[in-house]
């Protein structure tokens, strides 16, 4: 067998942080090679080097025996590398065919040939079972369809090596299965594939060979037929970290409910249709769904960012009338935002200025901030929540993802909230940091708080939630007990189907 891709001694640093440490491996032709590693292990960085988004300090990449020019995506494409990024790289307001064609004709050509291109795309989509309409606007496609466009984009440019970066992160279990079938078909037709993931079961299902990456270095390699889960997870994480377990607690009293809540929205994902839910003290209520089905709108509603157009919200037996972040904070709602960097912190401000961002009015005198109190408060948080930093004057943007999340958790939990909205709290964190976040949320649950956990990670959802519900097209499914539902059933709910009610004993919602 010939090697399709040969990575030779690649090293990449960001400042003092080593993202890739002298990595070498080969990808054989017609092979599916899985690259396993947890968040922050350097998988995406490595792929971005292969594709020329980043330039490595050392090492090089050979494709079919020829060395690639570093830092040039165009050279990588011409050499036959196709990449499906974790976050889709599509222009929403352009059509499918425009997205696919871009870059395939000379920029200086005075005309363009859309018909030929359309025909080629249609033929390819038939050959590989990737159904998509060339003239549709990308904004009108579902997540699964967008991913098909991403794969077609690569195939259109005659990719020989296809790299998929966490391709299942946004798919339902059923969609993932159909993706795996497509990949096997592609390999049968002669392509070679690198499949990046941190999910063991997927990697075992789809790959021929597995490489494990940890802290930027290759630590393990095995044929998939010889692999076993324990060895994989141990080499992925290093020392074993025990995930905290949700202990059984007595059922709490109801503290929070949404009754017939509607939010009008024109774009997909901004609409909420007739949402009913109730949540209790001492429980974690998990909500999941394919991204863009209204979870963000629900989170924004629960965080006080948007107002409902109809329906009402009850909290502690009071009807909520003031929808604003400030009034929610005053009523002891703790909110952990979806995007730490965008909504969670002001990156260019110091740690202490970020720490007081929800309480600064309470520690002021005559309109002046009490610096002494603020800094004292921050010192306590850093100590209590074990935030690793270079002191309270450090800019928040310089924190690692895990420590930034600790800062946000500290800010929220130090106010002893009764209701906690945690929106994707572990996104992008490594195993240690994930365990930390879950421990904190479970501790809050033990102390009687009600936690609403919004996540796309089904493992997380089922491991710590007491009850779960699924969002689809802005509607919320009935609520199920977490120990009585399977991932496959969740997958059906996520794609809009219903599941057999008798077997799962759904709890009927109390409607106002």
């Amino acid at each position, binding site marked *: 067998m010939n090697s399709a891709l040969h990575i030779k001694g690649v090293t990449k640093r960001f*400042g*003092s942080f080593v993202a890739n440490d002298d990595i070498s491996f080969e990808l054989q032709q017609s092979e599916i090679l899985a690259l396993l590693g947890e968040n922050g292990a350097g998988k995406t960085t490595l792929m971005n080097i292969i594709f020329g988004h980043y*330039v490595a300090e050392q090492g090089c990449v050979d494709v079919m025996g020829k060395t690639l020019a*570093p*830092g040039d995506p165009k050279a990588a494409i011409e050499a036959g590398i196709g990449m499906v990024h974790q976050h889709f790289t599509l222009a929403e307001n352009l059509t499918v065919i425009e997205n696919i064609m871009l870059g395939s004709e000379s920029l200086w050509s005075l005309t363009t040939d859309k018909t030929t291109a359309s025909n080629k795309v249609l033929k390819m989509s038939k050959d590989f079972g990737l159904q998509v309409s060339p003239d549709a606007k990308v904004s009108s496609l579902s997540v699964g369809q967008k991913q098909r466009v991403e794969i077609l984009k690569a195939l259109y440019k005659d990719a020989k090596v296809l790299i998929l970066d966490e391709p299942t992160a946004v798919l339902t279990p059923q969609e993932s299965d159909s993706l795996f079938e497509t990949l096997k078909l592609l390999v049968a037709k002669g392509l070679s594939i690198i499949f990046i993931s941190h999910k063991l079961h997927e990697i075992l299902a789809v790959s021929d060979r597995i490489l494990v990456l940890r802290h930027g270095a290759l630590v393990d390699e095995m044929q998939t037929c010889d692999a076993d889960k324990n060895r994989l997870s141990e080499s992925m994480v290093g020392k074993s970290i025990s995930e905290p377990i949700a202990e059984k607690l007595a059922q709490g009293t109801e503290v929070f409910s949404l009754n017939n809540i509607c939010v009008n929205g024109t774009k997909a994902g901004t609409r909420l249709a007739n949402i009913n839910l109730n949540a209790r003290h001492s429980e974690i209520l998990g909500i999941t769904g394919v991204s863009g089905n209204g979870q963000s709108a629900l989170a924004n509603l629960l*965080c006080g*960012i948007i107002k409902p157009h109809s329906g009402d919200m009850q909290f502690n037996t009071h009807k909520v009338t003031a929808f*604003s*972040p*400030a009034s*929610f*904070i005053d009523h002891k709602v703790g*909110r952990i*935002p979806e995007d730490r960097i*965008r*909504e*969670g*912190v*002001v*990156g*260019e*401000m110091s740690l202490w*200025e970020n720490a007081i*961002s*929800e309480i*600064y*009015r309470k520690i*002021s005198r005559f*309109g*002046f*901030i009490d*610096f002494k109190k603020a800094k004292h408060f921050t010192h306590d948080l850093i100590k209590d929540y074990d935030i690793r930093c270079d002191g309270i004057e450090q800019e928040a943007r*310089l924190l690692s993802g895990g420590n930034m999340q600790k800062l946000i958790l500290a800010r929220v939990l130090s106010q002893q909230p009764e209701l906690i909205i945690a929106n994707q709290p572990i996104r992008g964190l490594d195993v240690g940091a994930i365990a930390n976040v879950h421990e904190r949320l479970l501790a809050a649950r033990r102390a009687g708080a009600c936690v609403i956990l919004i996540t796309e990670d089904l493992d997380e959802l089922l491991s710590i939630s007491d009850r779960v519900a699924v969002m689809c097209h802005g509607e919320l499914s009935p609520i199920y007990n977490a120990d009585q539902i399977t991932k496959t059933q969740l997958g059906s709910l996520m794609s809009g189907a219903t599941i057999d009610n008798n077997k799962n004993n759904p709890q009927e919602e109390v409607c106002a």
Partner: protein
Amino acid sequence: MRLEIRENMPIWVQGLAPIIAIFISLLLCSLLIIWAGKPVLESYALLIKGALGSSFALSETLTRATPLIFTGLAAAIAFKAKLWNIGGEGQFYMGAVLATVLGSGLVTLQPILMIPFLMVTGAFAAGILLLIPTLLKNYLRVDEVVVTLLLNFIVLLFVNYLLEGPLQDPMSMGWPQGRPIIDEGLLIPIMDRARLHLGFILAIVAAIGCWIFMKFTLWGYEIRSVGLNPEAAKFSGINISRTLIITALLSGGMAGIAGVSEVAGLKGYLTLDMSPGFGYAGIAVAMLAMLHPLGVIASAIFFAGIYVGADSMSQGMGIPSYIADVMVAVSILMVLVSILLVRYRVIKG
């Protein structure tokens, strides 16, 4: 070419960067002097002499710096909140107009009250002027850059109308010139045989006040948060609309006071050519000061020196005085680059 974030940079480098930027701008502008066929060093020597060479020259520089400190503060405060106020010119004239309306006999108070009265009302009027684009931005998502720019032209035409109509000085023999400010409202000179007036001291006080406001108060904290990351600010409970309104009133107010100070301090009456672009130059002042209120003082004095010095250079050497504006524009660009290079390093590939 790529940019890579620098982890940290010694503070003295950050302070030195704008100075190097200024030096490079002067170097670039010497090309214009060479084009004019004049000796570069001699011309710059004349510029420095014209700006600092005598106590009179120095007083002229500080006089010119006075409105620049105010408009520089206006830009610095607004830009901190990422409110792109390019309307300093219009707000300047708004303040000047209100000083003329109220200060030319309509209201008479003791000087100790009259001067603050004119300042506050002028600031308020100019603040309201900036409030229009701010509210349009906040509630209707109208781009404030274009609106503030267009308002400059509207205000200038309005001033033109006032000076040929209701506010025209009857003694001006038809010149578009405003009625004079009554003696109680005039800013007293603070130097013998020079034009330097009380406004300069007020400008210093204003700069210190803005610094304290931005650094130590709740509102200052809110303005900085909103400017650096509006989404995070909103998420943590800051009222964005209110913060922008405060910013607009303060920023517009500063530019308005610049107008009051020029009318009541320098000439005593309003003319159409009162501002040779103080509003726009304020942007340069704020950028050079890296938006720091105390830095605005130094940076305003520097640019004032360029303007005053360029006048005497153009008289002595025959180089068109527009060179001063070129220098100001070039130094904005160079300062921008220097700020970038402090934060990033440029690497090949």
